[in-house]
């Protein structure tokens, strides 16, 4: 009768695991779901040298912590499913990263075989990996495979059968140093009070997991008699610090092994490595990121200035031409409604395009990936994964694709928090408001004020994340692992194309929703018939005056109130509304003049208004995407109410602080 064994294929994502699985099992595969979750489970079988081998393909994971569903599935199957052998598929071209998982699998004490996959790619680039030495160092059989060509499959299955027949297996432990080891020893001692627990889980492995603050490991001891002793030990331990120390130690071990088993794997530092050494440095990384962002905003304001003046000149010419249109109502529609409303938004297209161009350069050069890495430390400390920073960066362009970009975040709570804070990241549509008001009321440092507003958006997002994490969406962020693309010199063509892809949306909006919005606001400002255009007696005036008491504590007049109400449709409409309500059609500079002349407006009110526009309820499209991505009206309503409340509160603080300072 043939022997039957089960093997589990483990490994990092994108190491050719599925290809190897297919190479081993051929067509004898079946798929289903892992129990209780929607993660696909693939298994198959093969007969080799009179042994029936059941092969289970585990989800790809970088480690065996419990930060993601995939990691928990992989780990639980290895521990509870008790496969006869675990085959770790290792990408031979990226040994350092892959061996991290090896160090964790070794601690489990399971029979392990390494499939050194994509070996051909490593050999082609000149790596010479000494598999014999590697097997000796790691005390694990190492087999060369090329899954895509089916090479080494027979050798791999031979090694698997051999390994399944050897016993017992011992844990290959890493020494974690004088500070950590005594705590591990104490924990192991405490865990041994419960023989049932230690017969199920290797005690040292469980101790390490507990010391790293693994919530899933903590669940395993909640009903154990060892629980109190374990909790007593853990109460004096900073899990984050110990986790970092142990991760550092694992990488130290890998760094020591790697040069001895591979003669060319440890390469000279490339230019990209060298740049990373500085821009991802613990102390200089964030200041460099802030400096670059300031440079981008400074250019956004100043370099756009002559182009804005050109558009303004064209707008003035058209406005004068519009005065000759008859009948008169059509002249005011074209002059005040279209040119005053839509034109007020079009003036700011140079700012939007310049900002998007600069962001495209940073993205195409590979820097934005580093920015996400640099911010990861900060993000993690506030309870968010570094992965959340990428949607936040995308949010500088538009919140809609940014919220869709959160799909890469696996953990539900991490993703929900990232979605909820994204509207605080200032999108391009809010830029015209900032450029107009900062230029008018802070003429000495408009770029600095705009930069400050963007930073304020990030700070509010971060603090909100911390609040959500501490209250409605508890949990621990999953660690952030990402491949850094090499730096590239961005070409003008590529960056212009990226800029156009993202920026053309604003032109389409100007011809669509903003045009409609401007016409609606013009009609509300021009009617009932016979009233003075844009006066308090118009429909717009009535709406504004009805809602204005709500905004009176913030110092906003009824025109600003109306613009905020209609800005909910699209944030550009805030400026279009002001342009229409102040009736600037016949004079391109009239909006600036009217705002400066308005006694209700000063530096403090202007700042409060900009902060309110920055933070208040998301636009209609963003709300729709929040509803779609969260699948919940509750969270959509929460986003609207929370954002508006924060905006109101901060604007009020600015107004009151301004009154106090002004009063002194």
């Amino acid at each position, binding site marked *: 009768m043939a022997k039957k064994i089960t093997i589990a294929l483990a490994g990092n994502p994108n190491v050719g695991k599925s290809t190897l699985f297919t190479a081993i099992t051929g067509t004898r595969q079946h798929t289903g779901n892992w129990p209780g979750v929607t993660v696909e489970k693939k298994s198959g079988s093969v007969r080799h040298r009179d042994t029936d081998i059941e092969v289970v393909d585990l989800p790809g994971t970088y480690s065996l912590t419990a930060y993601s569903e995939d990691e928990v599935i992989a780990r639980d199957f290895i521990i509870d499913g008790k496969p006869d052998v675990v085959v770790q598929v290792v990408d031979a071209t990226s040994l350092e990263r892959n061996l991290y998982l090896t160090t964790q699998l070794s601690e489990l004490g399971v029979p392990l075989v390494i499939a050194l996959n994509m070996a051909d790619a490593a050999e082609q680039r000149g790596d010479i990996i000494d598999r014999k030495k590697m097997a000796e160092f790691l005390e694990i059989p190492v087999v060369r495979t090329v899954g895509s060509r089916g090479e080494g499959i027979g050798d791999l299955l031979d090694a698997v059968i051999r390994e399944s027949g050897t016993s017992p297996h011992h844990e290959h432990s890493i020494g974690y140093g004088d500070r950590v080891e005594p705590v591990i020893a104490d924990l192991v001692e405490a865990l041994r009070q419960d023989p049932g627990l230690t017969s199920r889980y290797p005690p040292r492995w469980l101790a390490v997991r507990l010391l790293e603050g693994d919530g899933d490991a903590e669940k395993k001891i909640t009903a154990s008699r060892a629980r109190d002793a374990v909790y007593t030990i853990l109460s004096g331990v900073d899990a984050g610090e110990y986790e970092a120390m142990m991760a550092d130690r694992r990488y130290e071990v890998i760094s020591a092994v790697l040069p001895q088993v591979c003669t060319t794997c440890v390469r000279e530092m490339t230019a990209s490595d060298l*740049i990373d050494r500085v821009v991802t440095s613990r102390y200089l990384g964030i200041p*460099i990121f802030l400096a670059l962002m*300031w*440079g981008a905003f400074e250019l956004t304001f100043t370099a756009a200035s002559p182009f804005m003046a050109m558009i303004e000149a064209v707008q003035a010419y058209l406005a004068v031409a519009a005065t000759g249109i008859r009948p008169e109502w059509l002249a005011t529609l074209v002059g005040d409604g279209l040119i005053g409303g839509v034109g007020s938004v079009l003036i700011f297209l140079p700012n939007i395009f310049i900002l998007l161009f600069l962001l495209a350069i940073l993205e195409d050069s590979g820097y934005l990936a580093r920015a996400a890495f640099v911010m990861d430390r900060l993000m993690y400390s506030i309870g968010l994964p570094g992965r959340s920073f990428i949607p936040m960066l995308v949010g500088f362009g538009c919140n809609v694709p940014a919220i869709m970009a959160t799909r890469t975040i696996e953990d539900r709570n991490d993703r929900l928090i990232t979605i909820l804070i994204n509207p605080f990241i200032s999108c391009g549509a809010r830029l015209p408001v900032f450029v107009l008001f900062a230029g008018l009321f802070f003429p000495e440092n408009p770029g600095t004020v705009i930069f400050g507003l963007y930073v304020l958006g990030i700070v509010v997002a971060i603090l909100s994340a911390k609040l959500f994490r501490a209250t409605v969406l508890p949990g621990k962020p999953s660690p952030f692992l990402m491949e850094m693309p090499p730096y590239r*010199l961005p070409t003008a063509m590529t960056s212009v194309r990226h800029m156009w892809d993202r920026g053309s949306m604003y032109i389409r909006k100007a011809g669509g929703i903003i045009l409609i919005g401007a016409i609606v606001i013009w009609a509300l400002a021009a009617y009932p018939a016979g009233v003075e255009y844009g006066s308090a007696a118009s429909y717009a005036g009535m709406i504004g005056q009805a809602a204005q008491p709500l905004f009176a504590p913030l110092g906003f007049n009824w025109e600003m109130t109306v613009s905020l109400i209609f800005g909910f449709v699209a944030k550009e409409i805030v400026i279009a509304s002001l342009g229409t309500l102040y009736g600037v059609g016949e004079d391109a500079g009239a909006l600036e003049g009217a705002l400066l002349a308005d006694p209700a407006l000063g530096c403090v009110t202007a700042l409060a208004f900009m902060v309110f526009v920055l933070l208040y309820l998301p636009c209609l499209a963003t709300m729709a995407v929040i509803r779609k991505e969260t699948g919940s009206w509750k969270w959509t309503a929460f986003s609207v109410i929370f954002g508006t409340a924060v905006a109101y509160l901060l604007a009020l603080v600015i107004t009151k602080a301004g009154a106090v300072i002004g009063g002194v």
Partner: protein
Amino acid sequence: MNNEIKAVFATVMGALYLGFGILEIGSWIVPGLAAMVVAPADILGGFVLCVIGLVFLAGVPGLRSGTPGAIAFLFVGLLLSLAFGLVAILTTGAGWLETALFGDLAEWSAAEMAVPMLFLASGSVAGYAAWGREFFRGIARA
């Protein structure tokens, strides 16, 4: 010898950037100081100059002792210095263009270009000309 020259260059550039950065921040804090020094009262511009200065200076000990990789600080310093020099050129250039198109060019003065971010970058042009190619040749086009 080559490393010593680089270390001296990084020290001088680092000190100049840091010095002017502190002056710009100081000018922002102390009213009237800007008129006495060649540094505008710009707290964030000053912060940027300080960051560039610190990047240059962070590499000096490594360059002096020959630590592998220390050269990265010099080159990233050069890169940041040139990038912000370009920001300063575009900023002043935009001002000139706007004045030329819609104002009176007689009102525009070349002195507007005398900002530390711009004149300090000229030192980095020399540094880039001397060593830039050896470093940046490893970076491909996007």
